[in-house]
């Protein structure tokens, strides 16, 4: 795993630090999950379905208990400061799946009591921006609207760290774009950070500063996006160019009638022959890494 820092941030700038998180299930395990996020940035958490994204995010909030590992939020140890830290964290897991027969205004009236810094004005602005009707019941909302309602709750108590699990899935393209813009606005003051998991990699191309990639419970990479992307190249060649040396260096490849397309680590360049190289995008990196 490589772990690069942007701008050489100091310890005080760190809003989230995860060290050697382990959680073993019968058929799946999180293995030494480590990454960190500094104030004022957006980190995209990518991985396939079942790679461990939600489990990791739930572990950060103690909804799932890690077997070992340390989590620090805003410089504080989570285990010893759970209450204070939860006030500073906004979490969204997919959408609102609780109390489907209750009205949004009822759930809001309960939720807001728990937050010392609840901002009714901000909440009303988000309700308007997301076009939510407080008189509606949760089950009457589409999946996308459920996510928006969950976000409105999470954003209205001045959270410094937002932990969002698949916040963009289920949203239409316009809402997704609006949400990504909102994320950018939120981190503008340099005090807040967002960690969000997704498998819609184009969202991250638009707004993420860092990428953390989890595969089968292990972090493959956690780096700033440019470095992460620069670390890989797409190679294209003819059948004849698919030599043993080339294939041994490829992370993954696909063959077709003309030749092959594959992914290679920039560090493993050059390779023999005049093979076409082009920059890799997140989706391509994910697809070929999963073929490894």
């Amino acid at each position, binding site marked *: 795993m490589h772990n690069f820092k942007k701008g050489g941030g100091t310890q005080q700038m760190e809003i989230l630090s995860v060290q050697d998180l382990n959680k073993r299930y019968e058929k799946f395990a999180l293995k030494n999950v480590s990454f960190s996020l500094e104030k004022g940035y957006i980190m995209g958490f990518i991985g396939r379905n079942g790679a461990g994204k939600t489990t990791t995010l739930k572990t950060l909030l103690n909804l799932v208990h890690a077997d070992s590992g340390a989590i620090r939020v805003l410089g504080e140890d989570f285990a010893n400061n759970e209450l204070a830290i*939860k006030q500073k964290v906004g979490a969204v897991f997919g959408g609102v799946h*609780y109390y489907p027969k209750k009205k949004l205004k009822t759930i809001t009236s309960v939720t807001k009591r728990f937050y010392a810094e609840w901002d009714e004005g901000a909440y009303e602005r988000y309700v308007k921006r997301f076009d939510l009707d407080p008189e509606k019941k949760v089950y009457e909302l589409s999946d996308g609207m459920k996510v928006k309602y969950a976000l409105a709750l999470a954003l209205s108590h001045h959270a410094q760290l937002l932990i969002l699990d698949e916040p963009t899935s289920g949203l239409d393209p316009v809402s997704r774009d609006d949400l990504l813009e909102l994320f950018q606005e939120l981190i503008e003051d340099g005090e807040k950070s967002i960690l969000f998991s997704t498998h819609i990699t184009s969202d991250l191309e638009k707004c993420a500063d860092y990428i953390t990639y989890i595969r089968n419970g292990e972090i493959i990479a956690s780096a700033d996006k440019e470095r992460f992307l620069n670390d890989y190249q797409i190679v294209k060649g003819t059948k004849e160019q698919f030599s043993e040396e080339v294939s041994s260096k490829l992370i993954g490849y696909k063959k077709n009638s003309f030749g092959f397309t594959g992914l290679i680590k920039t560090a493993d360049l050059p390779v023999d022959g005049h093979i076409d190289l082009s920059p890799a995008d997140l989706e391509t990196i994910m697809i070929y890494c999963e073929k490894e």
Partner: protein
Amino acid sequence: MKDLLYKEFKLAIHPTAFIFLSLSALLLIPSYPYYIAFIYTDLAVFFIFLLGRENQDALFSVSLPVRKRDTVKARCYVIVLIELAQIILAIPFAIIGSRINPNPLGNLAGIEANVAFFGFVFIMYALFNGIYLPMFYKSAYKAGMPLVFASAAIAAYIAALEVAVQSIPFLKTYLDTWETGMLSRQIPILVVGIGIYAVCMWLTYRKAAKNFETVDL
């Protein structure tokens, strides 16, 4: 805790918890196994957990900035409030019922709803809560099996009590009566019942909270 209780009342409590309180009036029936009126309370408790399971209450509550064990504590307070309300509401019905009972021998179907009886009800509640809550919080979603065990326990408890009171002469004389002369025998049972209930509820909370701590949501 105030906010968690607000959440319980606003979202979590099943309406039967309030409706079943009216079943304290069953104590007006001249001949009736009066424990039944209080078994309904436990049924209402079960409905709260069932409703909570269907509404993902545990995940919602724990996602809020609260300690996990405090969500259990709030639920325990709610249960105590409902059980105490059921008992307090039952007292006037017990008194009126005994006055208007046309049977010269009083309740022909079991123990009189007297002071000792209420002591036994406290112990019955303690038994139900002590089994149901720690068992439920082992998974935070299996609401049915704990009910089977807790119901079996209170059924056995009631059966044993009724058999003892009806078949052992001195228990029948001391406990199955409204005679004020027997109050000196019955009041200690009430006091002990309340004591057992209080201690058991505290232990129940501790055990349930401990079980819930280890649950992954």
